[in-house]
């Protein structure tokens, strides 16, 4: 757990999610609130107009006798009791209703049924302008909040029915309060859940970080635990493991290269040093000459090794400078075979060739010469005397295929498919283990492949396949 909470990604993610969540819910509540308020007002207005119409009807139908006022008052009282008698938790009455009827004939007479004296209400009504049948909010002195009042005129005598807005406001207030309570709780809970789940997820990332840090400092053998499933973090872990696999492979290869270089350079250095040292203590001039010549030969082998190592490394890195021109592979192979024939004959090898003519590839001529000579040198170096070497060149399916096979002992089983790696060679191989690595790298640089297989009659077969050139050279 990092010391400062606020710098963690979990904190930030939770914070932002919560912010977005609370803003969203707030907007949603506001919409609900508006709709509800609208509905409440519409309901109270509907009640007011309906009730006022009933009262007007009653006033109209009641005979205008002494009991008239009594009856109307009675009906008004009844109507008022239809309003649900909502009370707040404190027992305060919420739904104040008043009824006021102005009777112009025979005398100015006001019938009032309401919570207090009629004067304040009458004054407020006189100041307001009503459209008949549509409710209107008016302020009544001494009353908070306003009253919703509807006017219904009946035979010149207006009837006013008013309902305090307190009830509706109370409902909305309660709604708002409860929402705020629930909203705060939800937001807090949401933040907590979001923070904890994000932290849990990021803990896995943290574990990957820790493991990778450990791998960086200790060794490449460790691997990240790969959780089941395939979510992003599992994929991250898998990708890391793949990367580690590759890094380990290249480090291993690099190590084998450095080991190889060290080994292959140390022995000639030792022998050259020894040779020169013995020359120093010798008296004989002929011995000196011999030693110096031997030393030069050793140095030449060393410099050849260095060159090859550099070439292979460059080729593997795709950094070999190449000048690709149409190369008549048939001619190049023929020339090389002629170059190597005497040396092969010296070792009593029988060389059989079957070369298709006019096979043209687009390649760097120098690299081709060195690659092919590498393959032929391999035969010279590795075969015991008296073998048969089969060299075939064919072009088919857009590829030039050079097959060099022999009936020698074949590739040592212990190197298996690793023949193309640098410094991989058989235990008793006199070579440096770079030849085929170079051939492979050059083949790949030319968009081709090189493969090995055991020949039909044991032996070894190397097949070099290169894409043939699309254009034919001006001269063969």
């Amino acid at each position, binding site marked *: 757990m990092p010391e400062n909470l606020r710098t963690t990604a979990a904190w930030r993610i939770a914070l932002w999610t919560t912010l977005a969540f609370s803003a969203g819910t707030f907007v949603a509540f506001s919409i609900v609130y508006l709709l509800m308020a609208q509905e409440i007002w519409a309901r109270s207005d509907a009640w007011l107009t309906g009730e006022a119409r009933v009262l007007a009807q009653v006033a109209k139908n009641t005979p205008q006798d002494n009991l008239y006022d009594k009856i109307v008052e009675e009906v008004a009282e009844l109507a008022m009791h239809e309003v649900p008698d909502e009370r707040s938790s404190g027992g305060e009455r919420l739904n104040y209703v008043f009824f006021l009827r102005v009777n112009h004939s025979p005398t100015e007479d006001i019938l009032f049924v309401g919570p207090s004296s009629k004067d304040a209400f009458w004054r407020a009504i006189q100041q307001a302008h009503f459209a008949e049948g549509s409710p209107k909010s008016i302020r009544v002195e001494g009353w908070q909040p306003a009253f919703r009042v509807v006017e219904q005129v009946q035979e010149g005598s207006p009837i006013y029915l008013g309902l305090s807005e307190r009830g509706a406001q109370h409902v909305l207030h309660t709604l708002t309060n409860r929402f705020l309570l629930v909203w705060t709780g939800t937001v807090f809970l949401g933040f907590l859940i979001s923070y904890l789940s994000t932290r849990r997820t990021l803990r896995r990332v943290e574990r990957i970080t820790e493991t990778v840090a450990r791998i960086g400092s200790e060794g490449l053998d460790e691997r990240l635990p790969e959780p089941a499933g395939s979510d992003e973090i599992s994929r991250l872990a898998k990708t890391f493991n793949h990367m580690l696999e590759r890094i380990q492979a290249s480090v291993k290869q690099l190590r084998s290269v450095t080991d190889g270089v060290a080994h292959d350079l140390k022995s000639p250095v030792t022998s050259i040093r020894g040779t020169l040292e013995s020359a120093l203590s010798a008296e004989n001039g002929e011995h000196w000459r011999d030693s110096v010549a031997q030393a030069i030969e050793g140095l030449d082998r060393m410099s050849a090794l260095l060159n090859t190592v550099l070439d292979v490394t460059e080729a593997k890195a795709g950094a070999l400078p190449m000048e690709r021109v149409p190369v008549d592979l048939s001619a190049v192979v023929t020339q090389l075979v002629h170059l190597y024939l005497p*040396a092969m004959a*010296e070792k009593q090898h029988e060389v059989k060739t079957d070369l298709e003519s006019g096979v043209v590839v687009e390649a760097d001529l*120098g690299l081709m010469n060195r690659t092919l000579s590498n393959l032929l*040198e391999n035969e*010279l170096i590795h075969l015991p005397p008296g073998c048969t070497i089969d060299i075939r060149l064919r072009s088919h399916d857009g590829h030039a295929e050079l097959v060099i096979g022999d009936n020698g002992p074949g590739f040592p089983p212990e190197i298996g498919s690793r023949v193309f790696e640098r410094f991989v060679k058989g235990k008793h191989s006199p070579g440096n283990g770079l030849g085929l690595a170079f051939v492979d790298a050059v083949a790949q640089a030319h968009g081709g492949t090189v493969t090995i297989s055991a020949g039909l009659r044991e032996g070894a077969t190397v097949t070099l396949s290169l894409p043939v050139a699309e254009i034919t050279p001006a001269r063969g």
Partner: protein
Amino acid sequence: MRLSASHSGTQDLSIESKLPMRLLLVEDDLSIQRFVERALVEAGFQVDASADAKSAEALAVEGIHDAFIIDLGLPDMDGLDLIARCRAHGSAAPVLILSARRSVDERVKGLEQGGDDYLTKPFALAELLARLRNLLRRSSTSQKEPLRLEVADLQVDLIAREAKRGDRILQLTPQEFSLLEYLCRNAGRVVTRTMILDHVWHMRFDPATNVVDVHIYRLRSKVDEDDRQPLIHTIRGVGYVLKHA
């Protein structure tokens, strides 16, 4: 070392001027500079050596050198820039570039096509001398191509592509003839296996096997058959030389 064998070669080149050719050697590694200078002096050249580009440029502007030998990795300037500056000063002397880098970059290739040459380290002194002579021969007024070469009682007819040792006609394959021709053209000078591969088979690589030697043995068995006077000699650690012992 039998480098003294190459004296005769330099004398050929100096026939016209009667003066020793003068070379400018620019190499910052003093151990290399020292042995190259000694080899060049032994081969009959007059050598000015310099370890940095600045002093080399000062020498080059004098315009007294027949060829430059320039190392690419100089402490104060890239060797190629030095060559460009020498050219800008109007010097037309051919350049032999020494490079520690195995792969030769495009700019060097460009120079090579322009008539200059390059050699990668490590190199055999024999090859350095051979390439230098080549450069000097190319830059001097073109000598007449000889029609026949003669060394002792060996005669090589370049037109008929026929070789004779005394009265005996040598039965040579075309490859063997080319090899003999190359040895004869360089009679008295040591040639390395790499040089032979380069000039006879036009391939530039260092063979790891005795592939070139076998050709030489075969040629020798024909040329020096009854070894009254062997002409083809092995210089251990270096290469071969064709000469009248």
